[in-house]
């Protein structure tokens, strides 16, 4: 383990040296860079959410079977300056949160091109920015976040920005969950930007900096002062011209934005 760490450190140093030299030659203003690890955890009642487990939502048993979103324009802010960490990532709890340990670890994305310095803000978006949203999965390789056929909805001409799917109980006996809910959100008006200010993040040379964000999953079901009544609202009907569908999709999009908590 120690050797691995040493090796990792050494290679980081070497690559830093290399990059620094590279930068000097081309663009000296870019300066030194380092790694930032951003971790997302999905939480339910303050504990890591397990996919396919039963939870209580306002007196009703529910189970979440799929939970994912596109993370766009993740960037650090330094006063007025903004440094992009990542343009687009697909954050999927469906496969990571299948065990307690997996859920506790969350989904981590690491970027090693972050400038050194002190930052006081973080901004990120839920969704696919409109320029990228004009593309389709076939434009990308299968390993690219935007190369996933399952995350594009051709009838909207849009990626599916976020998915919450699951089942809920209707008869008070939670052994079988009779009905399902499917909240897929997409199209440009559903893009949401969230900013965190008054932060204190220092990126250092040779060590990675962690940023940890939680998603309060219960907040995804927020409706006014209470929660969505799943027997009434359980799917977003696809037609973008449908005002009811639009209202529900907007509500879910806002909920995604508001569910983000900086740890």
């Amino acid at each position: 383990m120690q050797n691995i760490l040493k090796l990792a450190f050494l290679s980081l140093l070497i690559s830093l040296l290399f990059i620094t030299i590279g930068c000097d030659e081309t663009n000296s203003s870019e300066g030194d860079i380092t790694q930032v690890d951003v971790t997302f955890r999905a939480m339910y009642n303050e504990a890591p959410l397990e996919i396919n487990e039963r939870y209580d939502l306002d007196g009703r048993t529910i189970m979440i079977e799929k939970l994912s979103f596109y993370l766009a324009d993740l960037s650090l802010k330094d006063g007025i300056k903004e440094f992009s960490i990542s343009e687009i990532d697909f954050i999927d709890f469906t496969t990571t949160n299948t065990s307690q340990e997996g859920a506790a670890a969350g989904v981590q994305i690491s970027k090693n091109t972050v400038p050194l310095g002190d930052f006081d803000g973080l901004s990120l978006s839920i969704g696919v920015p409109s320029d990228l949203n004009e593309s389709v999965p076939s434009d990308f390789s299968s390993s690219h976040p935007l190369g996933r056929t399952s995350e594009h909805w051709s009838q909207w001409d849009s990626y599916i920005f976020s998915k919450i799917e699951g089942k809920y109980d209707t008869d008070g006996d939670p052994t079988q969950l009779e009905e399902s809910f499917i909240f897929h959100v997409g199209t440009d008006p559903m893009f949401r930007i969230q900013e965190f200010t008054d932060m204190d993040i220092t990126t250092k040379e040779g060590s990675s900096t962690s940023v940890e964000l939680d998603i309060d999953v219960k907040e995804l079901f927020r409706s006014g002062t209470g929660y969505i009544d799943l027997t009434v609202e359980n799917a977003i009907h696809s037609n973008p011209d449908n005002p009811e569908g639009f209202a529900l999709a907007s509500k879910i999009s806002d909920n995604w934005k508001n569910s983000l908590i900086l740890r």
Partner: protein
Amino acid sequence: MLIRYSLILLTAVFIFTSCKKEPPIDENDLSHIDYNPVEYIVQIPDEFPMLEVPADNPMTQEGVQLGRRLFYDPILSADNSMSCSSCHQLNLNFTDGKATSPGIDGIAGNRSSMSLENVGLFYNGLFWDGRSTSLEEQALEPITNPIELNNTWENVISKLKESEDYSERFRKAFGITNKNEITKELAAKALAQFERIIISNANSKYDQFERGDAFPTDSEYNGFDMFFDISPDMPDAECSHCHGGPLLSTNEYINNGLDEALDLNNFPDLGRGEITNYIFDNGRFRVPSLRNIALTAPYMHDGRFQTLEEVIDHYDSGGHYADNVDPLIYNLGLSEQNKQDLLAFLHTLTDTTYLSNPDLSNPF
């Protein structure tokens, strides 16, 4: 000093012996045959995903042609009775028309043969359960599978080496210099190259009306509308959530409600769960493409439905309960007319023109 003397001696001996008789001819040597592989360019419709070819198995004319022969050659089976093409028949869109596919000994498998149409464009695992991650890896399996070709690779390789034609083709495709370099990995690479050219055209009636080149009938249009959940006036059939995109499959692993399982251990075939050991993956199978679906009855991983009508009835009913049935599987409430429309739409997905590509046919 000693070394120098012995070297001279050795050289002398060498010259002497070589004078005595001709240098031994290695009859397995292939280096005299030209090795000049020509790139094979695969035509892929613009709207399809890109073809991702492993760096160590580039597409060549020679590789594809070798793979094509292997695919159709019963030499691969223990008793020379079957080839890949027995269960993946060109005229049945590369399936076999059977619910489950019996191998050389007539032992029925438990799974239905899969169409190989566009198989090179599926990147989320192969087989119904995704147990294989690449075509190169996949091609190794049928040879030794007792319910398929039930052979051994040693046997296949020795038959291939005995054949001058195959030896020459392996040389031309992969540059080997000796028959002994023919391996199962190279055979699998050739088969994979052939499978990567099984790419359909995007020219079904559905593709044509998507592009505005043809008009659907009212019934076809209504089916299309329900399949893709387009208008609020028609019921949503939800199909395209799973059978979406240009290949009409998202390739995810899903339980579409075929079997009731109040206990998730009770599926007759565990499917994906057998590979991942995650109980919620039990009873999940890979979503198949629906291109040319009208040609590949019977349907589902075990071929349980004989017709598309039965398939539609299944989805309309909402299937059977298990905790992991996908939330999109529920009672759709379709009318008889709705079902006929959906069926009419599924028939617009037929386009067999790609099957006349001469490189796909039996070379024997």
